[in-house]
């Protein structure tokens, strides 16, 4: 009992720290989400870019930036951001879903690039 109690006390702060370590602790992030939900995409784009400067390895931020680029018609930039997001967090269902939907659209838009834009397996994984 005592062991579990001690473990709880030790692990909870550690867990919070680890889980939330990648959080861009800025108001930019939340503000951008709200802006995007209200259709203010230019504002959201600017905020996410700012947040990314502080957290360049945040997959969710790269995903959000890609969505904003899509809305602006900057499809090549969107593709680049989706790829970074996928590389940083290959198991994230929502990022994968966005990326797959975008690829379908992108390949229709640029049929000549269709062969090149097929999805690669996530890094550090081998196909059996």
């Amino acid at each position, binding site marked *: 009992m005592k062991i579990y109690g001690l473990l709880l006390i030790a692990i909870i702060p550690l*867990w919070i720290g680890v889980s939330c370590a990648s959080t861009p602790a800025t108001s930019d992030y939340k503000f951008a989400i709200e802006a995007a939900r209200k259709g203010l995409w230019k504002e959201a784009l600017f905020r996410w870019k700012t947040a990314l400067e502080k957290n360049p390895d945040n997959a969710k931020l790269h995903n959000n930036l890609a969505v904003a680029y899509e809305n602006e018609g900057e499809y090549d930039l969107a593709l680049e951001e989706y790829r970074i997001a996928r590389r940083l967090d290959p198991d994230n269902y929502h990022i994968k879903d966005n990326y797959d939907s975008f690829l379908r659209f992108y390949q229709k838009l640029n049929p000549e690039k269709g062969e090149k834009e097929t999805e690669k397996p996530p890094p550090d994984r081998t196909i059996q």
Partner: protein
Amino acid sequence: MKNNITKRLSKGWFCLILGLVGIGCGGAAHLVTIQHPMKERIPPGKYKSILVAGFLAKEEEKLNLNFETVKYLRTELRKNTPYKVTEEKPIDIPPARIEELPYDTDFWKSLAIQAEAELIMWGRVNYTVEPTAELKEVRYRHPTTGRILTATQLVDMTNFKMELDIYFSDGSSGELVYRDKYSQIIPYKGRQSADLTTFFALMNRILPSILGVLIPQETTEARYILSD
């Protein structure tokens, strides 16, 4: 025994707290809609007038598909694009020549001269009705108890399918400028026959894609944005 129960309880609380902390820091996904600006496929300003020439179609019992498709597209092009839409009697596309016709430059040149059109739209339309059945959940009131119950039932459906191959030929050179394929399915409950109402419903769904060849369009898509 008591010690075992205390240990299990502690383990339970431990897992619950870890789970809650995990959820708290896991973030949320918000589904948003975005607009995809789409450029027109045919360069703007290159052509001023268009002739919707005709469509190869299997004759339906009630519908003259060639006539209806031509009439519908002419009306919509007039309403939605800056092109001058030329009026001519719809031509009959010979089924035997459908494969070679896109490359028969002389044919399209002569038609363009006759109709005084700079761009010619033509193609093939296929409108099919397929009876099908789907398993669906239905709610009903039990005759004795009066309770609302849910049951799975085989429901008769009809799939109305429209397939449209569209070609755009240059009036001055007769060469093929652009081609695309479109298809839509609308399932209806019950057995029904092909009629104009469903034809228009299907065409209305395909229309934005066709207009997108001639004028800039926006398509709506759903995406997830993620918060920490």
